[in-house]
């Protein structure tokens, strides 16, 4: 449902330039960044580095795709970072402490994610708690919950449990491969998972009936209801899908880290939110969309990777992310508003 260029051939050159910018500014910025970084630091363009960028962004991108879905129905899911942390901790707990194996870990993590999604949906749809408040509440709830089983400690292989025993289990080898393996000696598995999910979310939003209804609900809930959409059910679905994607992100994080690190989920939610919002400006979509979200995530990661290579200080990272986000929002809302 990408809107075609609104400016006709007869429009003034200035208007056409503006229209062009609104559509392609962020893609051009990405290309420009790659070009500049490659010029300053030739190692930047090595295939290994490019995949490193993608791998570094894969987890945030999964969460951002979840936010994209909740934004599509006109809501916002702030609990995704907490859900990812919950997934990380529960997968580690199931494998290391309970020793149930990798499959059980995945099943438990995804099930817990689904539960949180259902809970969010229930708060928002049934109790009519405003979405931001509901998911802010469940964010705190889940952040606290994930600390309880391990008593607030990180979970590592061979850790000493509360009863004095050594934890019996370990991370399954194939599970760790999810976060670390590279296919054909080059392509990280996590990147493929990210691209696959992005493709699925894109297909869902652009090419399926529920996806179209998601956008309709986000645009005008009343109109969607009067057109026969089961608004409540679709909103619930959006929050469940969002939490599932976040759980998947947490699983990839567990596989990459090989331990249940209590502080690793922090910061994911803001990065994911930023990527999804930057995505509004890609191709002039002005709405949450899967392709834009992916571009937004990659753009931020590229910028950070290049700056790191050029020895920019690590503490400048958040400032840079903020600058990109604000610029993208200016494009989306400020400039596009001037269009007829």
């Amino acid at each position, binding site marked *: 449902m990408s809107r075609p260029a609104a400016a006709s051939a007869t429009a003034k050159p200035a208007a056409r330039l503006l229209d062009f910018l609104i559509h392609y500014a962020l893609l051009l910025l990405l290309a420009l960044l790659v070009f500049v970084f490659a010029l300053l630091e030739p190692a930047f363009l090595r295939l290994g580095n490019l995949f490193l960028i993608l791998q570094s962004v894969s987890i945030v991108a999964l969460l951002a795709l979840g936010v994209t879905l909740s934004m599509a129905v006109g809501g916002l899911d702030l609990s995704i970072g907490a859900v990812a942390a919950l997934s990380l901790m529960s997968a580690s707990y199931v494998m290391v402490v309970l020793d149930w194996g990798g499959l059980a870990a995945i099943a438990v993590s995804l099930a817990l994610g689904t539960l949180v999604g259902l809970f969010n949906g229930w708060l928002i749809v049934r109790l009519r708690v405003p979405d931001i408040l509901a998911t802010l509440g469940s964010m705190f709830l889940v952040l606290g919950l994930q600390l309880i089983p391990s008593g607030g400690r990180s979970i590592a292989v061979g850790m000493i449990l509360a009863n004095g025993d050594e934890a019996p289990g370990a991370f399954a080898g194939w599970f760790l491969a999810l976060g670390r393996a590279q296919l054909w000696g080059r392509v990280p598995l996590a990147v493929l998972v990210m691209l696959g999910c992005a493709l699925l979310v894109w297909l869902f939003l652009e090419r399926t*009936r529920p996806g179209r209804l998601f956008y309709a609900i986000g645009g*005008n809930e009343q*109109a969607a209801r009067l057109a026969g959409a089961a608004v409540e059910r679709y909103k619930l679905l959006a929050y469940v899908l969002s939490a599932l994607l976040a759980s998947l992100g947490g699983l990839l994080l567990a596989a990459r880290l090989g331990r249940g690190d209590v502080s690793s989920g922090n910061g994911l939610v803001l990065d994911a939110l930023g990527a999804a919002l930057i995505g509004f400006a890609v191709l002039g979509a002005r709405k949450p969309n899967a392709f834009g979200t992916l571009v937004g995530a990659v753009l931020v990661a590229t910028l950070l990777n290049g700056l790191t290579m050029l020895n920019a200080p690590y503490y400048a990272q958040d400032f840079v992310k903020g600058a990109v986000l604000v610029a993208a929002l200016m494009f989306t809302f400020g400039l596009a508003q001037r269009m007829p």
Partner: protein
Amino acid sequence: MPSCSAPATTFIRLRGLGKSFAGTRVLEGIDLEIRPGEVLALLGANGAGKSTLVKVLAGSHRHDAGELSIDGRSLHLESPQQARRMGLVAVHQQVEQGVVRGLSVAENLLLDELCAPRGATFFSPRAALRRAAEIAAGLDLRLPLQASIESLGAAEQQLVILARALALKPRLLILDEPTAALSTPEAERLFGLIERLREAGVAILYISHRLSDLQRLADRALVLRDGRLVTAFEAPLDLSAAVDAMLGSRLEEVALQAPESGEVVLALRAWRLHSRSVAFDLDLRAGEVVALTGLLGAGKSAIGETLFGLRRQHAGDMFLDGRPWAPRSPKQAIDAGVFLAGEDRARCSRVPGFSLRASMTLPFLQRFSRWGLLDLAVEREVVQAQVQALGIKAPGIEQPLELLSGGNQQKVILGRWLLGTGRLLILDEPFQGVDVRARRDIGRRIRESAAGRATLVICSDPDEALEIADRLLVVRGGAVVAELPRPGLLRADIIAHLAGTPPPASLHSPRQGAVRV
């Protein structure tokens, strides 16, 4: 209380006043004199320009033609604050726009003082309470000043808003539908207040669709139509004449073919909309187009919404194709073939940013799904065909719907529901914001496609109803009170029924209890 020393001569004078929005004249050539101590009623149908005139007088809109003079001085009102300084104060119809939730009654009474640009920085609750008590006492109002505003009923909130306006000592008080939320005794209380104000020399511009209010209060009535003042009446008001002037007489005969009377699609039995409305029966048949007409607030839309599952009736049964019909949601209604296009396109039908294509197919996306994926090629084809069939003028089907003209938007919405195989199509004010040519066109499309389903068109305008319908139903007080077959029907008959003063010899007047329609 407002000062009583105002002389009984004109203090506000409009000469050829006009206002346009984006090239459309909304008000034109308004000549009007307002004298202290008179109640002036303003009548007009939807879109006649009433609220624009009010907004010009209240300083929200700046007039762009003609002259507005106050006390002999010609001026432009630039802001509501300036209008208030000149003594022109408007009270708006929506209670929720006039009170601030979370504040107390006293704080609401003093809201204008609190918000004044040069108001005091520090706020003393005790001084505020004293000041609010003065205001309330001056108007003889007994209000729980320290209670939160939400704890008051709608009527008392209305009085708070009014008291707030009166605290500004207005010379002209503009009341826009002040009785909409009030019961009869509460309205009486308001009328008493208005009469006291009149005696104190305050001019009152009173807008209401309750004709009985106007008859009770007004010294003069002005009728607006299509942005012009068409007539003025002196008290006592002739209601039929006023309604007639309000709706205008631009009837041109439209030849309607008699419908093939089909089977009954929808039947209502001993049906009551709410506890205060009379029970009635109703049959809608396949192939016929029935217009539901009535004044603003008569309950036309509510009847349509009940058929569509948006609300429940108070009593009685509904049958769709002979089976009991009790829809609980629009989804259920649509699945059963009952469609409704709501009155307010922006609120009920449009999704911001959705293209013509996506807007049209929204309820029927299932038809374009193949193994879960939408077949966009088929969707485009179907939409393109509908665009052709209905003569929709648009640069393309990917154009955002909100960029089309009102008439074309309405055609897209009509086209949407014609995509489904409906048993009952309900169109609520399909001609709103649509120019005359498009109106004729849409009316023709509705009639052409009417075979095989029942069509219920809700329209307040009797001319529109006459243009499109095989049968007219007049709604008053939430009930169908008269059925008027189209052949030989004159608009005068409709108007008499609308105003509730049918000719004594009328065959269609309601009987006691259930009316068989």
